[in-house]
């Protein structure tokens, strides 16, 4: 049974806002800090007006001091507060790495449970309309490498709300990866509060011929590729990991066990990346009993170029994903196949400006 309320739609950005607002109302310890969170843009709408509703103590701008501000968030978390830190671009989170890796990730372990760090770091990956080399980087694999950090990368508005609520309520540091291209994507989001558990992948679209794992925005592109592949009579299963650390390797492995083929499409570079990790873990789990073929797609191994003509080459597209999948399924000897065209409107229409 579904009521009309269950069919309410929000954009991804609105879902993030709703999760933040409802948690702030529920728990006075929750607060938001970050450059520009209380300005007229309100972090692409995700924090808009929270300082008016909850007061400037609970949603505030910070100096351009990522290192110390991260440490300050950690210090507040040690004292029982629940800070949400927001970074307009993940590129800037490199300035926070010392605190996130050396402190936040270590506090529970190093002090044998004497401390906990209920910290949420929202990091937004940029893309399109000339973001260039320093406003487009995706470092989720850096965080996946570190014990003591949780990493989530929801793709749908539904999962964005549930992942953020879960992250805020968690007593551990959580890095929430958001892709700027997802903020305006619309989907069904229940009004009630709910948590999306860690380590549970989502089968976005079932299929029997090949398993395609798409991370963050690439999950959307993989669904588009699946539709293109129908013209070649290839039935792809698209899986969104949702949670990158911990990973739900069971769901992915079970799919690969059925299909015998795995394509991982990352919102990031391939080398030492999330795609490498997924491939390695699936192989360790089933490789001894189920041979399978595999491939990875991701950003080209270059910095991101600014001009659109090159930028378009840099990212996997529904076409390139469909082509790679076709080759994986039909083999190197199969005749050439050109997928149709499909519009990734959130990319094409983006005018940011950032």
């Amino acid at each position: 049974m579904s009521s009309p309320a269950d069919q309410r739609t929000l954009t991804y950005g609105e879902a993030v806002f709703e999760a933040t607002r409802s948690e702030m109302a529920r728990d006075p310890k929750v607060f938001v800090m970050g450059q520009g969170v209380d300005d007229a843009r309100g972090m692409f709408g995700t924090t808009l007006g929270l300082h008016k509703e909850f007061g400037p103590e609970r949603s505030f701008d910070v100096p351009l001091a990522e290192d110390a501000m991260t440490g300050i968030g950690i210090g507040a978390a040690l004292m029982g507060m629940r800070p949400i830190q927001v970074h307009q671009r993940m590129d800037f989170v490199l300035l926070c790495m010392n605190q996130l890796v050396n402190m936040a990730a270590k506090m529970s372990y190093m002090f044998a449970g004497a401390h906990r760090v209920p910290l949420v770091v929202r990091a937004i990956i940029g893309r399109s309309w000339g973001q260039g080399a320093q406003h487009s980087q995706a470092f989720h694999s850096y965080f996946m490498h570190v014990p003591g950090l949780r990493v989530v990368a929801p793709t749908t508005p539904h999962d964005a709300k549930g992942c953020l609520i879960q992250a805020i309520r968690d007593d551990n540091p959580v890095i929430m990866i958001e892709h700027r291209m997802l903020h305006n994507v619309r989907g069904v989001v229940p009004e009630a509060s709910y948590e999306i558990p860690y380590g549970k992948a989502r089968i976005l679209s079932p299929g029997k011929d090949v398993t395609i794992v798409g991370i963050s925005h690439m999950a959307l592109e993989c669904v588009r590729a699946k539709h293109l592949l129908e013209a070649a009579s290839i039935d792809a299963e698209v899986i969104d990991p949702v949670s990158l650390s911990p990973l739900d390797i069971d769901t992915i492995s079970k799919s690969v066990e059925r299909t015998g083929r795995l394509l991982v499409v990352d919102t990031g570079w391939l080398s030492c990346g999330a795609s490498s990790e997924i491939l390695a873990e699936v192989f360790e789990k089933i490789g001894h009993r189920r041979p399978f073929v595999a491939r990875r797609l991701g950003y080209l191994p270059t910095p991101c170029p600014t001009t659109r003509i090159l930028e378009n080459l840099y990212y996997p597209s529904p076409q390139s994903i469909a082509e790679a999948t076709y080759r994986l399924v039909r083999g190197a000897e199969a005749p050439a196949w050109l997928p149709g065209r499909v519009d990734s409107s959130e990319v094409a229409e983006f005018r940011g400006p950032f």
Partner: protein
Amino acid sequence: MEERTNDPAARLYRTMYLIRRVEEEIIRLYPTDKIKSPVHLSIGQEAVSAAVCDHLDRDDVLFGTYRGHALYLAKGGDVPRMMAELYGKVDGCARGKAGSMHLVDPQIGMMGTSAVVATGVSNAVGAALALKMQKSKAIVVCFFGEGATDEGAWHESMNFASLRKLPILFVCENNFYAIYSHVKDRLAGPGLQARSRAYGIEAELIEDHEPMKLHERAGAAIAAVRRGEGPRFLECMTYRWRDHVGPGEDRVHKYRPDAELDARIEGDNLRIVGGMLPSDLRRSIEAAEEKRVQDAIAFAEASTFPEDQEIHDHVFAR
């Protein structure tokens, strides 16, 4: 703990003597290799921790560095659990996962020390932010060496603490040397007090070998912080007698003149404070603290090592 005596010199002597004796015992035990981890000794620097912490309440929150034995003990940290931690035993304050560099006891506000220079400073400021948000009466005291002031994070933290008028006392233990690098080779401009004042934070320098003045000025600074006047900065000149790390002397490295070290040892703060006390009181303090030290070592010896499966515990809080 016995009752708090009215004589601050007696309280300081008790704390400083405990710190000195614990660390002398660490030096004695080190060759046995029972303490299998780096130690950064506070011998020579005991007065700063003792004088500042004498003004703190149990609820006040303390952040420090890997040279943290003195701080842990001065705030009232459990001596047996510290020794067990150094031994890597399960009864240690962090079940052996921390060691000497990360002593912790949140029950008394000892928040756990960091071994990456200056990283604890911003955490301390964040704790002060939380106390202000929680409308707490407690304050934060943040200890660091002068080396930490080289780091960008220190500057960012000072700025924010002042911007938000947070309840925090910054205590710089200026012992001149970051490992073997002298502060004059690292610090430009008119010095740390001026840097602090540039952020709008009142600053004061206290010379070494004046432990009771240090005690009095720390009390004044803490009172100002408690009154809600915002952060204060104390630059406490001090001197490390031993090597940067390890139990030994370091004269062999020739990075500091022997005469400089000898003069500091000659002006021993522990002896200065002890000289203010009647000899029978001094002896009774020494006897009591000596017993605590030996009991702590016996406790550490008797404790067991953690079970193998503990390696997986506490990666995440539950």
